[in-house]
């Protein structure tokens, strides 16, 4: 079983190393991540939102839907924590 796990990990490592060779360099201007909407954000965020902090403009405005999801995740974590721990307490009372 241990040998199997090690073999799977080894194969995975080779696949990742192979895939890494195809990634663009860090900060590469021709990379897809830097070609799509980044230039628009950098050029227009100040005139669009009056917000000098680019990160805030992207986080709360352009990517507001994503931030809503993050907030839901945090809220769900609190709910889940309460439900799990409350349930333990209820069982002890019975």
């Amino acid at each position: 079983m241990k040998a199997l796990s090690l073999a799977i990990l080894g194969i995975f490592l080779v696949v990742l190393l192979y895939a890494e060779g195809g990634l663009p360099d860090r900060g590469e201007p021709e990379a897809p991540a830097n070609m799509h909407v980044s230039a628009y954000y950098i050029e227009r965020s100040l005139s669009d939102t009056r917000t000098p902090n680019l990160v805030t403009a992207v986080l709360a405005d352009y990517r507001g839907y994503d931030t809503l999801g993050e907030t839901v995740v945090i809220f769900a974590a609190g709910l889940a924590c309460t439900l799990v721990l409350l349930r333990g307490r209820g069982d002890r009372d019975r």
Partner: protein
Amino acid sequence: MTDRYQSVVVELVSRLVVPAIQLFALYVIAHGHYSPGGGFQGGVLLAASILLLRLTQGREESFRRFPPGAAFTLAALGMLLFVLTGLVSVARGGVFLDYAALPLPLASTASLRYYGILLVEVAIALTVWGTLVVIFDQIGTRTRDV
């Protein structure tokens, strides 16, 4: 864990530090437009001030100042504010979370987006604040009971 900490120094210092943390948290939230910061960071700071209260002032005193139920209400209010901001934009003919469609008496779309971002940051801060205090209260009460 949630008993009163028997030390005059700790008690007095926490009394001084808690409002300072809360004031700084408000600054972090409000200044997110201009510097690193925003709802998540400010909410964590607000939660940290309450956790300091819980650790130093003891159960009765800190529950009187900040009841455990209030934390849940705050978290839920934050979520409500966030989703309502999005839905109001939809009701006014924009797309979801399009702050330009918010019904605020401001002339330019840029200003509308500016205050829309602030609204959302406040909502995030409320949710993070409430949730972290809720998690701490649950874990804290449990260790006390065991």
